[in-house]
């Protein structure tokens, strides 16, 4: 019980931090901030309102949802594979989504088809991994991991080919998609609702996940339905990844980083680590997108490229502090 308090405190702090980052995203942009109370004329305020409601709000919600979903998926996959290097993309889902989306861009299809392409690619990869990794009864960690990794590399090769064959005019769109980009984020509500639902589905299993990290044999002996838990976790992680990738392209690093950051801050108890990771992931992507929009405005950067730039030093600093303690 003693370790509960600092964890809860950290979680509360993360909630406040996420809210602040969200507000900063709404307040900052290349257009100056106009306070409603001090607006000199109605036209300026009306313009600002349109900018906030139509441009900034959908985008920041999409950023939070994508980051949160990837953090959730990353946490689950790391427990599932018991491998600290695992991230949501290790199972080939982002590769599948990328092939679908890039093909749509290459063929010059409309935006909706691009999202549908990403969605169908993601789910095709997901089903393929399930089908191949299942085998006869025995469902080992290594088998899942290897299947995913090999599928991911094959899809990576397809992506490289698509890039090599693409005309210049579609190349930029394709690269932005691959680096993770929120400018074209469709329906943030879908991702946000998805995040809510998947989080609610995962949280009741948090205790079981804690036990699972100690090994399957001990988990089974403690009465955890290991097989069901593994399947459930895998499907949830895959759904979260697919939803995130459809929303924001293949934003890298956050799915690996956020779970580790959360464990370093609040400890390994998933009842706290899981929501913390979601908040951290969401905030990281929001922060990265804020910088992507404003750093060298009016030039726009892909948010994905900035996440590692912010996240890596943060992670190394925490790791260093942990090592000294």
């Amino acid at each position, binding site marked *: 019980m003693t370790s509960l308090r600092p964890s809860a405190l950290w979680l509360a702090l993360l909630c406040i931090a996420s809210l602040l980052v969200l507000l900063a995203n709404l307040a900052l*942009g*290349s*257009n100056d901030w106009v306070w409603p109370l001090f607006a000199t004329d109605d036209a300026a305020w009306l*313009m600002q309102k*349109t*900018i906030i409601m*139509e*441009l*900034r709000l959908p985008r920041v919600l999409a950023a939070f949802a994508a980051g949160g979903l990837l953090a959730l998926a990353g946490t689950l996959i790391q427990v599932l594979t018991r491998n600290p290097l695992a991230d949501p993309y290790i199972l080939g889902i982002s590769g599948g989504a990328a092939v679908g989306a890039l093909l749509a861009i290459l063929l*010059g299809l*409309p*935006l909706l088809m*691009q999202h549908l392409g990403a969605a169908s690619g993601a789910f095709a990869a997901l089903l393929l991994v399930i089908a191949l990794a299942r085998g006869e009864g025995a469902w080992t960690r290594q088998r899942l991991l290897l299947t995913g990794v090999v599928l991911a590399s094959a899809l990576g090769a397809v992506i490289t080919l698509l890039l*090599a*064959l*693409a*005309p*210049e*005019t*579609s190349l*930029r*769109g394709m690269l*932005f998609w691959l680096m993770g980009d929120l*400018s*074209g984020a469709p329906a943030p509500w879908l991702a946000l609702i998805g995040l809510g639902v998947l989080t609610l589905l995962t949280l009741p299993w948090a205790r079981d996940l804690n036990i699972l990290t100690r090994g399957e044999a001990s988990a089974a002996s403690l009465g955890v339905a290991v097989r069901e838990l593994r399947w459930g976790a895998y499907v949830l992680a895959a759904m979260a990844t697919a939803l995130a990738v459809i929303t924001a392209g293949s934003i890298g690093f956050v799915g690996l980083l956020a779970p580790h950051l959360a464990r370093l801050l609040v400890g390994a108890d998933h009842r706290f680590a899981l929501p913390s990771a979601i908040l951290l992931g969401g905030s990281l992507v929001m922060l990265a997108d804020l910088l992507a*929009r404003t750093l060298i*405005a*009016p*030039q*726009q950067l892909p948010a994905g490229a900035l996440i590692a730039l912010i996240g890596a030093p943060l992670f190394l600093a925490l790791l260093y502090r942990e090592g000294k303690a």
Partner: protein
Amino acid sequence: MLHRLVILFAILVGFTQVQAEPLCVKNLDGSPFCLSQPAQRIVSLAPHLTEMVFAVGAGAQLVGVVDHSDFPPAARTLPHLGSYHQPDMEKLLSLKPDLVLAWHSGASPAVLDTLHRLGLRVWVSRGEHIADIPLELRGIGILSGHSTQSTQAADDFERELHQLTQQYAHARPVRGFYQIWAQPLVTVSDGHFIAEAMRYCGIQNIVGTTSNLSPTWSEEAVLRARPELILTSPPARDFERWTRWPELPAVKNNALIILPPDVLMRPTPRMIEGIRAMCVAADQVRAQHSE
């Protein structure tokens, strides 16, 4: 009194005429795109569209451009919105444009989607072929209220093209290759406006038709096709590479030609200058052979 009535009548008639005839051009799908009055605050989302707005005399109505809008020099001082692919939407919106000119293969679908959602008037043009140039000049002229000047510019352009077509209709075809980039070796295939320019001069593009308009090409394929003329535009990086093959007709003919800068890279009226330079190069090759 009668005098005044006549003036009043004239004003009324003029007024109703303006009201009755909106300024209409065509969208890419053939549907009409109309403005009720000439656009006074135009944003251009591609460098070649910026050039054309100036070419029809509507430069003063331009309020925002994207990067690389460097011609005419007056375009450089206009507010910049970032890249053509992902312009800064907030800045764009704050410029309060009454017309956004977009390039079909430039702006990302997401950008066009958002612009439409925000209720902005967006005219999307193709900007792919030489034949698109006079169409776009006329369209921009109509929408900006400069149709006299734009008709003139478009007619001039078409007349010059027509002259070239007649001049080279019976000239001996010259096998040519156009190098866009050296490493990797990128070229143009038929359908690209540079390849179209070559065709006007009777230059037969050795690349032919490919699915990608600017494919990466193999050096061996170039050597095998034995081009009589190899063209590029500045910066001509690593263009001397071809001199390693003294047997290549283009090298033997001394026909490794660097064309004038900038004019061929965008589908704008300035292309005519580049096409003429191409034709001169082709004529030189033909002259050497007849000697």
